[in-house]
């Protein structure tokens, strides 16, 4: 077995040192009834590297990789070009095979990287501080709701209809058990976001208002107006960003009154990966930091006065506070945070703005072209790199038919909101820098054929 260094001679020598006559003697505490005679039955034995590679490559070949076809899917996961150096750097063993930096003297690489990540995320989201990452956007969103409950001591969270339905679903699951009260709704297939309806729902019992920016249909809500309404009743505004590249083009939520900004960082550095692992972003104002979940890295000095970094404010965390912790989170998304941070460092201010500009311009071009397909209407007035089309028929079977023709056209709202008839004709199309003019033409042509 290529991963196990002990030889039979080693094992015999070690048993002698221990004073045990067999391996079985070391498992003496396992009750008789739970002992097996040999390996677990019903499973194959070990395999060579070549054999495993063959097996998994065959499974991979059954999938249609996004890069192999014209591809327009978004709705919380976006395909961006990741520079080659990102994947090279995160595979350095010193990052890949390190643990949570509990011994800071020999983990300054991870710690400084986390400090840089926190600083980048805080700036990008327009907040004072960010944590060292959460699992993903959906769990970060729920953690923000519970944080708002702790801060305001109120339990009613009002969700905009534009929040990703999976994020809402996660919050609903959790709220069933925690007693939080959620006011949720589905979106409407119209150009305007539901800011007015949302503001009407905010009352004195509201702990927080949760708004996605841009929203699930790609529309951009007026955060400042909602923030003002929330703050008037001492509720917090939680902004959810599922496409951080957008913040290279549109104003940061923290600059528009959001008290907590959470996000999905997958767009930068991480890749699609069929949904995970991703990286949750979590940022807030300085005064709320002690109610924040998750790990935080902070600056300090060592015994010689040199700058260094440590995990800090851990009295919020489960390994110290146990049942009184702000969250049960332990392992977060360190390596994805590194990938995000490297990609953002390579881009820098200039690159991020250019990237956002290209995304937006290509999306505008695609929207214009697709709206010319007979029967197709563009729903959005405003958008960044994702917009919604209203088809003359149900979008879900159209998506499947387009897939059969080798075009991955977008996400049908029927898939996200099954049973909602008013949304069934909606198709959400994402256009990033990876999309070419030919791809847009291929989609327009295939859509025209399928709808004809």
């Amino acid at each position, binding site marked *: 077995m290529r*991963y196990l*260094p002990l*030889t039979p001679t*080693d094992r015999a020598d070690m048993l002698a040192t221990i004073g045990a006559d067999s391996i079985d003697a070391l*498992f*003496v*505490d*396992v009750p008789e009834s*739970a002992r097996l005679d040999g390996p*677990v039955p*019903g499973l194959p034995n070990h395999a060579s590297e070549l054999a*495993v590679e063959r097996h998994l490559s065959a499974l*991979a070949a059954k999938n*249609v990789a996004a890069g192999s076809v014209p591809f327009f*899917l978004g709705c919380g996961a976006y395909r961006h070009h990741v520079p080659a150096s990102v994947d090279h750097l*995160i595979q350095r*063993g010193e990052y*890949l*095979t390190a*643990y949570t930096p509990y011994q*800071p*003297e020999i*983990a300054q*690489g991870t710690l400084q*990287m986390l400090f840089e990540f926190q*600083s980048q995320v805080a700036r990008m989201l327009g907040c004072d501080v960010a944590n060292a990452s959460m699992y*993903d956007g959906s769990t970060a969103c729920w953690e923000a709701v519970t944080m708002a409950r702790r801060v305001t001591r109120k339990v009613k969270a009002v969700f905009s209809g534009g929040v990703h339905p999976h994020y809402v679903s*996660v919050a609903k*699951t959790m709220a069933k058990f925690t007693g939080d009260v959620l006011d949720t709704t589905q979106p409407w297939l119209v150009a305007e976001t539901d800011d007015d309806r949302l503001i009407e729902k905010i009352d004195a019992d509201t702990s927080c208002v949760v708004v996605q920016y841009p929203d699930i249909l790609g529309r951009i809500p007026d955060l400042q107006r909602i923030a003002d309404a929330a703050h008037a009743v001492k509720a917090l505004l939680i902004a959810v960003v599922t496409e951080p590249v957008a913040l290279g*083009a*549109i104003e940061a939520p923290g600059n528009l009154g959001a008290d907590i900004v959470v996000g999905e960082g997958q767009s930068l550095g991480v890749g699609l990966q*069929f949904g*995970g692992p991703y990286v949750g972003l979590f940022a807030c104002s300085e005064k709320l930091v002690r109610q924040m979940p998750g790990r935080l890295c*902070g600056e300090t*000095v*060592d015994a*010689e006065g*040199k700058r260094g970094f*440590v995990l*800090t*404010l851990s*009295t919020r965390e*489960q390994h110290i*506070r146990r049942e009184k*912790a702000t969250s*049960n989170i*332990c*392992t977060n998304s360190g*390596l994805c945070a590194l990938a995000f941070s490297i990609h*953002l460092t*390579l*881009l*820098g*201010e*200039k690159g991020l703005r250019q990237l956002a500009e*290209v995304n937006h*311009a290509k999306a*505008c071009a695609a929207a214009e072209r697709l709206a010319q397909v007979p029967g197709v209407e563009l729903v959005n007035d405003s958008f960044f790199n994702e917009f919604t089309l209203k088809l003359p028929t149900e979008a879900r079977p159209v*998506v499947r038919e387009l897939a059969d023709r080798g075009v991955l056209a977008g996400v049908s709202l029927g898939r*996200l909101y099954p049973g909602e008839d008013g949304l069934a004709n909606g198709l959400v199309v994402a256009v990033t820098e990876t999309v070419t003019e030919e791809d847009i033409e291929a989609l327009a042509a295939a859509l025209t054929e399928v709808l004809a």
Partner: protein
Amino acid sequence: MSVNQSGWRPAMGEATGGAQATFTGNRALMLEEALIFEIGSAETTGVDIDEAPKVASRLGNHARKSAIGLPGLSEPEAVRHYTRLSRQNYAIDLGLFPLGSCTMKHNPRLNERMARLPGFADLHPLGPIDTVQGALEVIHQLAHWLVTLTNMDSVAMSPKAGAHGELCGILAIKAALEKRGEGHRKVILVPESAHGTNPATAAFAGFTVKDIPATADGRVDTQALKDRLGPDVAGVMITNPNTCGLFERDLKEISDAVHAAGGYVYCDGANFNAIVGRVRPGDLGVDAMHINLHKTFSTPHGGGGPGSGPVVFSKALTPFAPLPFVEQQDGRFVLVEEETAGEHHADSFGRMVAFHGQMGMFTRALSYILSHGADGLKQVSEDAVLNANYVLRSLEGTLDAPFGSSGPCMHEALFSDANLAQGFSTLDVAKGLIDEGYHPMTVYFPLVVHGAMLVEPTETESKAALDQFIGALKSVGERAKAGDTALKSAPHFAPRRRLDETLAARKPVLAWKEPVAPVAEAAE
């Protein structure tokens, strides 16, 4: 634009120990590195982006008005920055990483290659089901292995890490109780030696946590646990092997008692590596157990994640498992989600996470599992336990082993600070080990042992590697027993000396800010 290291030097106090101070602060291959904010600039970028087509903006009045404040680095600068930083990290690739309860085993590189196949890595989670059949099959195959290795009924694949898996198990227990009309059961029993995530999880889900004491031999006090059972108890959370590195001999008896009293048994599977392929938790009466793929099945820890924490369930809890999950229907794989849960899965407690879990970790874990097979996994747990016992017996003459006479340990060996010299602590031993070129063991955990030192060597260490580590820990241990004061200020040779954690917490600096005035050194 400056190259990385020029123009920046770490602020330095007095040079100590007669070491010659250098101009750069570097010490040969030990290189200092500035923050990206100190070496990058807003005009620099390491990515060439294609020209944007000319269009009228559709951003409405939402366009960004102010600068973000993000520094950029060219590719050579960025590669150098992150490479230099990486060298300040200890890692499994550099040496034995004996962090107890964390299972720092070798991460096979085949698994990295497999996860990066475009057919897995470049796949959107909402892609049409017919275009992702191979991905669903990976999940299905891994699920089959996990269920078979544990002899359980089903597995929820979506939890993102161990603590998220705990939450999954606890929510299933809560849903099952509510279905039975016994939502009034509000108490979860947790042994004192449990990981902090256990009580935090139970509290997060709205339960009250009651501690169960340990016996003198380091195991759960079975009688005390049985005495506490009653109509208010929802279940127990028990770690097996436990955090003292011992197998809970009475787990089956405890499970039977908990079930008889109307509760459920949650097993923290963080230490599954000790028994994988050799003992099946389903044979011990467990109702739910999370499996840290990043421990037992060697997906890389990555400096603190991502993890992955699938949860296996007994028949009793299976109906309450979360959405989504993968099923095989007529030779085709389907995702069972809210829409399709229908009558068959009406009792599912719902969705825990967007999309379907940590696919990138599933591919790696399946690659690991297929490589080992049933015979290899049995060898894994046997070698892990053999290595730990070898460490225990080789060191118990030097360090106090509080449960050394309780019989063999499982995958980790536990020591205490009992026989260190007055004024010397576990922390001093840990920092001394750093100077010897090792990452320290887990310290001050579990809480039931004073000054605990928990050593988990894992099965991927050779005997020679263990012998050297044992020699190093013996040496440091003897110095701590003899009162060698140099140990109090260790580490001496690491990139940083002991860091001031009190200062960090008292005056938190959590993000970089432009210096108010130029620092003196920069003006030189």
